[in-house]
């Protein structure tokens, strides 16, 4: 499996990271090195093996379905690059 420039550009787009056109060849080459390394996994016989979902055999804990937190608007917004009137502010999303 080899990554071409178009695939590299598509992955960058999916990851929401801007990559300039002239940086794409190097990026594609790096992907190919890493994916070439990962390809080894194809040698392993995984017939009938379950994919791991939890490394320690424990059951996730349950708790009462009640509100335990809240009323922290100031704290939630304290680190926002742009917060106005109690909300996060972003560029216009809907035309």
């Amino acid at each position, binding site marked *: 499996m080899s*990554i071409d420039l178009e695939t590299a550009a598509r*992955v*960058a*787009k*999916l*990851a*929401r*990271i*801007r*990559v300039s056109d002239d940086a794409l060849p190097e*990026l594609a080459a*790096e*992907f190919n*090195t*890493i*994916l070439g*390394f*990962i*390809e*080894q*996994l*194809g*040698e*392993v016989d*995984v017939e009938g*093996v*379950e*994919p*791991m*979902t*939890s*490394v*320690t055999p*424990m059951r*996730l*804990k349950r*708790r009462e379905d009640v509100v335990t937190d809240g009323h*922290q608007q100031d*704290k*939630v917004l*304290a*680190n*926002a*690059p*742009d917060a106005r009137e109690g909300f*996060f502010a*972003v*560029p*216009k*999303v809907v035309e």
Partner: protein
Amino acid sequence: MMSDMSKMTLAQARDALRAGELTSAELTESCLERIGAAGALNAFVHDTSDLARAQATEADARIQAGDAPDLCGIPLGIKDLFCTEGVPSQAASRILEGFRPQYESTVTRNLRAAGGVMLGKLNMDEFAMGSSNETSVYGDAVNPWKVDDRALTPGGSSGGSAAAVAADLCIAATGTDTGGSIRQPAAFTGIVGIKPTYGRCSRWGIVAFASSLDQAGPMTKSVRDAAIMLGAMAGHDPMDSTSADIPVPDFEAMLTGDIRGKVIGIPREYRMEGMPEEIEALWSRGTEMLRDAGAEIRDISLPHTKYALPAYYVIAPAEASSNLARYDGVRYGHRATLEAGEGITEMYEKTRAEGFGAEVQRRVMVGTYVLSAGFYDAYYNRARKVRTLIKRDFDQAFEAGVDAILTPATPSAAFGLDEMSDADPVQMYLNDVFTVTVNLAGLPGISVPAGLNGAGLPLGLQLIGRPWEEGDLLNTAYALESAAGFVEKPAQWW
């Protein structure tokens, strides 16, 4: 005298504080002085000296009142990955510039509650992605060990923690370990580092990299110190659904040094092709030491070892791409300046291009690729199946009676900063070849300094234990530490 205090181990400092031979205020001042004079190591990156002095005063009052847990009054360094209330916590990334958490991570809260003193935040690889501390927005941390004119890496990602402990800038430090990030830097700097069983320490408030692999642990000057500090960091936390609700034993009390009859496995697959002779020799010496201490040495096989690193480089980037999706320029940290007409998609793309360094971008994109439609089964699901097999290898060894497994900690001693800059990313990944299996299997692993190489740089051995049996593992490490008798310290050049 003042500058000597910071050279104490945690156990020595604790005993001296309780005996009234020194105060936390004096000890803290001694560390702050050494930090001030160690700028060349670039280990501490956010100064919290005012907070440290206030905490030391409080700790002294507690000690006076006879209410002193082990950590009370002990000056600690905290990896920048831990969220600390009101104190910059940016995972060594530009994208979290200016971020001041409104909350405290559970581990640092536990340390505070035990009376620990926070000296400052420590350098690391960006988002803990790296093995040399060269991906940090703060610049490289530097290893206090030096044998020629080259500046050496302290390892990574917990490079600042390792450098700070090895150079006696603090008594001990916190680290985190996703593929070897506590154990590899510990080995490169001649200190002890333990990654506990997955679930032993709460991950709440620790900036997430790969959530199924990340664990916090102590980095210390001795095995005893690691036992004491792990006890203070660990414990069940309802805020982390993967945190184990099991009691934390008194690890220090389990250090008897008696390992007679224990079965130590030597995995043949860790004898890598092209492994330097000095690593091989160290491993053999370590094996002899444990045999001489009365342990039974047994050759074992962990057949899927070879596939651990490629499985890791599917699973960790996949989880990272998901975890790091939260850095969108909306809720915290950096936001790119937009041109007229640019909208929300441009904001995301420019913010993440400006905020993430090259290695983080690479891993997020690799993770995005292996999770994308059409490749999910071929890469991600296959890697998770291989992970099941890697864990099964260990389970079978333990079921056959093995108590602990001895391996080298790293494939080499510390290398020069910039020396790997022309190598492809996979060459750097090979640093974690002996440590990464332990994260994939969720096991506890500890790196113990065991000797110097021909050039005079420290080398470490790794012991891997059964799940939840850190106490037994620490005891075996204690026996190895006693036999190895490693006492060398880096000569001060900074």
